[in-house]
């Protein structure tokens, strides 16, 4: 009978399980999980290993001196990097259009007239059709008085554009109803003496005329060619509640493509080049042609060149490998969009620009495992495990499948999908027990990055959003959950969550500091998970499946931190259902959930 501990040094966590090996077999005792110290596969791991071993023994109610053997995995660090590049931009020239969505425009309807500066209102003649442009800093009482005076004189005031957030205040104080758009930050740049149209829709509705190319043509009396030229304006104004369009001789709105550069993907036999501007789908198709990829690089002097170079530099820094030796083993490209302020806009208008996010992965050589094992044994002996022997046990993937197979209801052929932070790793154990593995780039970190950029939030907020469902605190005593149900509370909720969208994290309600609705945040979150985890699950399975046929896989067991996610396993299972695959979150040894597979596998392989 001997007391052993299996230890799995992972990229982010170190897991251990303690067991008694007897003549009858293995009796598992406790287990432990701690953050990995240092880069996986280096002697800096020792602290984490010690902590994990202690934790496993503590939960087994045993002490270090009784420990006889420790099995550690052959740790191959997988290092990953992320980058993102915007590939389009929207430009407005000569201030043709103000299409933003102030929270509170005033009045309603459509008004067409000539733009006149507020200071020059006195000089307008009766009957003149006027759109008045009021700079920032003039009090609403002064504005209302002057507008009423002009109306009194018979000036045909058709609409107003304000710098301040005063539209409702002014609308409430003047003697006629006109559309008023406010909070136009650069109101002083609105061209004067030009024909302009102001449109405000009733609350809850969106504008109809200025967002319609023929509406614009009608308002500004345009011919067919001119209408074609202004159609981007109409498109840009779709779905908002208020807008101003000024007709200037050469103003325009354009969607510009930023040259993002060419990506060079090197396979075993061929090399393909692909323009990043063509988007994720094209990049992934090109990648499929060269798989297995040997390395990737970007055209020097372009955005993508800088992007891949920085990923490699980062990896070289982290791993201590010479920069020239860093080879990108896999890429995942995802189309995304980034809310960015429109260049040339006058009111801080925001357009959703297209962007491509890239996750890259480097599989480094084996770490100095012998040294790590030596350091572990020295440490444990010093700490009281005088007799301990540390053994490097088996290939990680083999151990993972062995551990995963302890999940009740599984059998070979079985694929373990380890959903990590930087990469998604798959290992197949076929009917004969032969093992093959594949690592693909992109996992939890990329999801966080996509959520952060699409919602315009900090990464720590994005991390919270990723991990838990959403709700809105509609009062101090109830939450409306994202599925529409309501949860009541006896004690009032904390003040900082009131009226806000919150994340229901395990120990607290975390308010999300953005204006987006629950539905919108939820959609971004789920789409990001789809585009990373579901795509990668399929990608990995296709590479590893016998005969590249997914139907040849019987069972998929999800492991790793993201297998504990509240919706990722479900999203993947849905995607795999059509192939007749049984897919679910692992439950190692029937008790550990998706944790401890490698550690358990190490012990089992020695019994």
């Amino acid at each position: 009978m001997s007391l052993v501990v299996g230890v799995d040094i992972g990229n982010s966590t170190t897991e251990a399980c303690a067991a008694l090996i007897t003549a009858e077999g293995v009796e598992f005792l406790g287990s432990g999980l701690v953050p990995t110290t240092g880069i996986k596969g280096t002697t800096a791991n020792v602290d984490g290993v010690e902590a994990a071993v202690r934790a496993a023994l503590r939960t087994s109610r045993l002490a270090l001196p009784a420990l006889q053997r420790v099995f550690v995995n052959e740790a191959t660090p997988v290092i990953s990097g992320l980058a993102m590049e915007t590939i389009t931009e929207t430009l407005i020239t000569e201030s043709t259009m103000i299409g933003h969505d102030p929270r509170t425009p005033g009045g309603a309807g459509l008004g067409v007239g000539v733009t006149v500066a507020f200071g020059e209102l006195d000089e307008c003649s009766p009957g003149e059709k006027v759109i008045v442009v009021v700079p920032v800093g003039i009090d609403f009482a002064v504005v209302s008085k002057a507008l009423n005076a002009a109306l009194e004189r018979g000036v045909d005031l058709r609409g107003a554009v304000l710098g301040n957030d005063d539209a409702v205040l002014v609308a409430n104080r003047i003697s006629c109803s006109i559309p008023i758009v406010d909070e136009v930050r650069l109101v002083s740049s609105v061209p004067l003496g030009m024909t302009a149209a102001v449109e405000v829709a009733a609350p809850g509705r969106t504008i109809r005329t200025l967002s319609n190319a023929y509406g614009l043509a009608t308002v500004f009396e345009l011919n067919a060619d001119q209408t074609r030229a202004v159609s981007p304006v109409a498109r840009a104004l779709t779905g908002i509640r208020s807008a101003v369009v000024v007709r200037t001789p050469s103003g325009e709105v354009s969607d510009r493509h930023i040259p993002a550069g060419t990506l060079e993907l090197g396979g075993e036999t061929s090399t393909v080049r692909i323009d990043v501007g063509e988007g994720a789908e094209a990049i992934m198709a090109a990648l499929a042609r060269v798989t297995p990829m040997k390395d990737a690089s970007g055209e020097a002097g372009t955005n993508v060149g800088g992007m891949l170079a920085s990923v490699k530099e980062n990896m070289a820094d982290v791993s201590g490998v010479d920069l020239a030796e860093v080879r990108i083993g896999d890429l995942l490209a995802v189309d995304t969009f980034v809310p960015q302020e429109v260049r040339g806009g006058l009111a801080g208008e925001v357009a959703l620009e297209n962007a491509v996010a890239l996750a890259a992965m480097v599989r480094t050589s084996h770490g100095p495992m012998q040294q790590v094992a030596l350091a572990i044994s020295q440490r444990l002996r010093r700490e009281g495990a005088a007799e301990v022997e540390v053994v490097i046990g088996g290939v990680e993937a083999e151990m993972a499948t062995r551990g995963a197979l302890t999940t009740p209801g599984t059998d070979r052929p079985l694929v373990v999908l380890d959903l990590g932070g930087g990469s998604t790793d798959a290992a197949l154990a076929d009917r004969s027990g032969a093992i093959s593995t594949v690592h693909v780039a992109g996992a939890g970190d990329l999801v966080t990055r996509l959520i952060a950029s699409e919602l315009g939030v900090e990464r720590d907020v994005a991390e919270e959003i990723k991990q838990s469902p959403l709700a809105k605190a509609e009062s101090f005593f109830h939450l409306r959950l994202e599925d529409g149900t309501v949860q009541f509370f006896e004690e009032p909720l904390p003040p900082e969550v009131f009226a806000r969208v919150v994340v229901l994290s395990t120990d607290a309600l975390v308010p999300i500091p953005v204006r987006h609705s629950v539905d919108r945040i939820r959609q971004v979150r789920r789409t990001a998970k789809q585009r990373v985890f579901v795509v990668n699950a399929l990608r990995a399975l296709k590479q590893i499946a016998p005969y590249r046929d997914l139907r040849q896989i019987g069972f998929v067991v999800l492991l790793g931190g993201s297998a504990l996610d509240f919706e990722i396993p479900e999203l993947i299972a849905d995607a795999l259902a059509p192939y007749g695959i049984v897919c679910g979150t692992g439950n190692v040894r029937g008790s550990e959930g998706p944790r401890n597979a490698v550690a358990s596998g190490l012990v089992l392989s020695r019994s």
Partner: protein
Amino acid sequence: MNVLELREIGRAEKGARPDEVVLALSPGFATFFTKTIVDVPHSEVVRQILAGIEEQGVQARVIQVKARADLAAMAHTAARLSGSGIGIGVLARGTSMIHQKDLPRLSSLELFPQSPLMTPEVFRAIGRNAAQYAKGESPQPVPTLNDQMARPRWQAKAALLHLKECELLVKGAPPVEVEPVLTA
């Protein structure tokens, strides 16, 4: 400069409209005192807060508290009288708070503790945010400013203003609803 007169209408009652915000003014507001610690006229304070509320399409009622000069208690009184459950409290020196009826009294939705940093723009933003809370929207909290040198300049004057305002308390007097009348 505008002059603010608070015409008493009667005892402040609980409102029924779900789209109202109640603004509670301290005993010395526009009575003994005429301006905040940094000389923003009280007429302007009220005008800006009411404008912030009106711009959001929300109704406002104004009350004057007689028995307390404790900001949290005042703002909480306003919130409890408000049909929406959202109230604002403002002390004569400018310190302000947005409160909600279900919160414990000593808590708040937004607190503006540094009276020397209260400008007309901040008062407008307070009105705007309170109205947005009343509508069930999620306003961005008004950024709280900080100035390390406020202590040497204003700490003692703020204490003095507070002590003076405490002298004006009428024990047991209920809050009254007032109509703010601004005259040039």
